[in-house]
Structures are given as structure tokens and as C-alpha cells.
């Protein structure tokens, strides 16, 4: 029966342990880097561009104001149209009432 040289096995085992340890160290480093990157992301990527937002909001307000102006312009236009269409009949009824020619309303 052949004799096994245990020292060779022990040596290989030490090397193996070292490699696993190295892998663990590397993994630790990877995680540390990831945590560092996560911290950077949370610091950097949560910043907002206040100037840009302010500009956008002001533009929205300008649009709202313009829409309101347009809405009232349209109302006035429609009012003028209706008044043009019905002015004569309203005026006649007012005149008739004021003069006492007829009781209207």
C-alpha cells in the first residue's frame, strides 16, 4: 500500500482557504463599492433642477392666464353677437315700458 503525503494535502487546503478568503475579500469590496455608489446615487440623483421647474411653472401660469383671457374674449364676442341679434327687440320693449305704451316683462 502506497503512503499518502499529508503535507501536500494540507498545503493544498491552505491554498484553497486563501483563495476562498480572497474571494470573500473581493466580495466585501464589491459590496462596499456598491454601497458607496448607492450613497452617491441618493445624494446626486435626488437633486432637482429648481430653476428648470420654476421656469416650467411660470410657463404654465402664462398659458393659464392666456387661456382665461381667451375664454373671456370669446364670451365678449358671443355677447356682442347676441346683443347685435336681439338689441332691437330689447330696446323696443324698454322704450315701450318707459313711455307706458305697454307693460312688459
Amino acid at each position, binding site marked *: 500500500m502506497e503512503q499518502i*503525503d499529508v503535507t501536500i494535502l494540507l498545503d493544498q487546503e491552505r491554498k484553497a482557504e486563501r483563495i476562498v478568503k480572497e474571494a470573500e475579500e473581493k466580495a466585501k469590496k464589491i459590496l462596499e463599492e*456598491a454601497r458607496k*455608489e448607492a450613497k452617491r446615487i*441618493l445624494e446626486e440623483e435626488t437633486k432637482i433642477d429648481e430653476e428648470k*421647474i420654476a421656469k416650467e411653472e411660470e410657463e404654465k401660469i402664462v398659458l393659464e392666464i392666456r387661456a382665461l383671457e381667451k375664454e373671456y374674449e370669446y364670451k*365678449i364676442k358671443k355677447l356682442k353677437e347676441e346683443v347685435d341679434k336681439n338689441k332691437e327687440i330689447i*330696446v323696443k320693449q324698454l322704450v315701450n315700458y318707459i313711455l*307706458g305704451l305697454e307693460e312688459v316683462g
Partner: protein
Amino acid sequence: MSENILEPIIKEIWESVKAEANRIISEAKKEAEKIISDAKNKAKKIKAEKEIEYRKKLRKKLMSKIALRRLEIKREYLKQRANIIRSIFNEALKRVRKEIENKTENYKLGVRRLVEEAVKQISSKNIIIACNSRDRELVSEVIAEIARKYNKEVKLARENIDCMGGIIAYSSDLREYFNNTIDARIERAENELLPKLLEKYIRVR
């Protein structure tokens, strides 16, 4: 010779070591990816929340500015609207004045009806009618006929009143009074009739 026997064992040890090392690294990488992905998602959420909050804050600040402008626009609209409506009423007043100045048949007929309406409204048998100096003759012509029609004593007041036209009637005991001057009717037309006519004929609010 012993090395030959150990070789497969060593090979097996090495394969298992490599696999273990790879597993450790691969798991670490996977966890690292998750940490970064979680951070990105969290950052995105925080950024969105910060943006919403900032917009809200900004909007509140800008609202006072916009509210003032809104009011100005609304005020301008109401002014224009009032002018348009005023133009209808002014046109009616213009025509009324013309009828009065020219003492048209329409005006004469109107005065007659104004007197008649006032006499009907006053229950007293003795009624006095007052008018302006211009309409004195016209009013005196119609009261006799109306007095007969309603079987009442209707007299023209000695004093003239200061008004555009029309009449004021009152009972001789001064208990009843009816203002049917053109001036009073203009006021009633503006306050009572015009809103009704606008509601009937003008739908734009």
C-alpha cells in the same frame, strides 16, 4: 507515486474551491446590483417627491400673482360686459328722449296710459295729477276723459314738477301716491325690466 494518488483529490478540492469562490463573487455582484438598483429606484422616488413638493411650494407662491391677474381679467370682462349692456339701455334712453322732445303720438299715447294707470292704482275718488310744464296741456286734455271713464274727480296740480315727462298722481288727502314719471319708469326699467330681458334674450353670462 503518492502525487499520482492525490492528483484527483487535489483536482476535486480545486474545483470545489473555484466554484465556492465564484459563488461568493457572483452573489456579491448580484447583491451589489440589487443595492444599486434599489438606490436608483429610491432616488427616482425621492426626486419625484421633492419635485412635487417644490412645484406645490412654487405654485402657492405664484398663486397670489396669478390670482391678482385673474381678478384683473375678470374685472375687465365685467367692465366690457357692463358697457355692452349699458349701450342697449343708452339706446333705449336716446329713443325715449327723442319721443319726448318731439312730443310724438307715441309719447302722447304713453302719457294717457300713465295717467290712466295711476288713476286705477289710487283707490281714492279725488286724485291730483302733477306733471312738468311741457306736458301740462297734454295731461289736462287726457285727465278729463279718464276722470269720466273711472268716475273719479281728477285735477291737475297747480305746481309743476321737475321731471323728464310722465306724471305723479296722489290722492287729495295725500294718503296714496303713485309715481309714474318717465324718470321713475327709467329706474324701474333698469332695475327690474332690463335684467329680465337680458335673461330672456341674452344667454351669454
